[in-house]
């Protein structure tokens, strides 16, 4: 397995697409709890990888990355992302994030002007502490958390078999044995003044039925030149609307 020894945690990395491509590399970050790099690997990444290198990775504590106890705050995770992006070399790269992965991507782009060529934020929750799905997650038992998942995932869990057991175990680890929920609760908003200084062109994609749908309006209003697209879905767009989301990302990166 391709593992990357980032300073805070060993991260599981998967690269798709040609090693030497004409188009800029894309780095993709997934969302918390039920997300892994498979959220992108089996949805938008293959189409993007036809003409470019795509780097997907498991966030710390998720998938096959190290199950570390702390460092789930956005700045720490943005440093993880930086370690992954360093694998792409020094040229500007495109960056795509879903949910908390989008907040991590946003932080990285704000802190490293010139490193990110284009930025795609899918369902970024702002401020992070207000994110209804995550707040609900924190208040629930791992079993209830699993029950609040999108239908596509719930179906797989209905059996109560191996996959369900492993997902609940992973949720329990993240919710109870790590600082993740406390880190989330402390995560500050990104001020409008800082958002206005975001340098790469920005595409925001939100679900019409998502609890953080209005954040898309805020980003589109505040970030100069930002484009907002709303899909007929909820928060888990990579799973709920993979084809439409992939098309939007491709159009934006290729345009």
């Amino acid at each position: 397995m391709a593992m990357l020894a980032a300073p805070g945690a060993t991260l599981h990395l998967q690269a798709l697409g040609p090693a030497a491509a004409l188009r800029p590399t894309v780095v993709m970050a997934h969302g918390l709890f039920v997300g892994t790099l498979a959220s992108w690997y089996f949805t938008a990444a293959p189409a993007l990888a036809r003409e470019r290198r795509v780097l997907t990775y498991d966030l710390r504590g998720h998938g096959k990355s190290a199950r570390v106890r702390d460092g789930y705050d956005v700045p720490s995770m943005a440093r993880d992302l930086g370690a992954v992006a360093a694998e792409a070399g020094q040229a500007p790269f495109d960056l795509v994030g879903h949910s908390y992965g989008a907040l991590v991507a946003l932080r990285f782009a704000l802190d490293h002007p010139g490193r990110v060529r284009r930025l795609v934020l899918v369902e970024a929750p702002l401020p992070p502490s207000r994110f209804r799905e995550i707040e609900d997650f924190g208040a629930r038992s791992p079993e209830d958390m699993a029950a609040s998942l999108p239908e596509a995932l719930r179906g797989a869990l209905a059996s109560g078999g191996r996959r369900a057991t492993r997902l609940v175990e992973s949720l329990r680890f993240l919710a109870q044995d790590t600082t993740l929920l406390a880190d989330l609760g402390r995560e500050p908003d990104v001020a409008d003044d800082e958002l206005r200084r975001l340098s790469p062109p920005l595409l925001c994609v939100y679900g019409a039925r998502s609890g953080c749908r209005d954040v898309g309006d805020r980003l589109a209003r505040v970030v100069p030149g930002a484009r907002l697209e709303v899909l007929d879905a909820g928060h888990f767009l990579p799973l709920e609307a993979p084809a439409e989301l992939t098309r939007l990302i491709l159009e934006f990166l290729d345009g």
Partner: protein
Amino acid sequence: MSDGDTRTETLATVERLVREVMDDEAGLGPPIGMETSFSNDLELESIEFVALAEKLQERYGSGVDFAGWLSGMDLDRILSLSVGDLVGFIEARRQEARG
């Protein structure tokens, strides 16, 4: 070597790698045959399927393009694959390579 032998060998390799990604090297999990479904029978997690694709790529090399094969399917289709589907894909690509 007959095609039957090759197919049996490929199945044995796939079974060994599947058990590796499921942390079941001892073979205590469900039996694995051509009809076994990755989702319904083995309950493989999507991240484990990624790990399996990587192991298969290491074993069979660039002539057997798993990522390319999977990229033509949506997640539901991928998870509904059987072990036999995967063995068939590997065999077809290896036969092409042999000309």
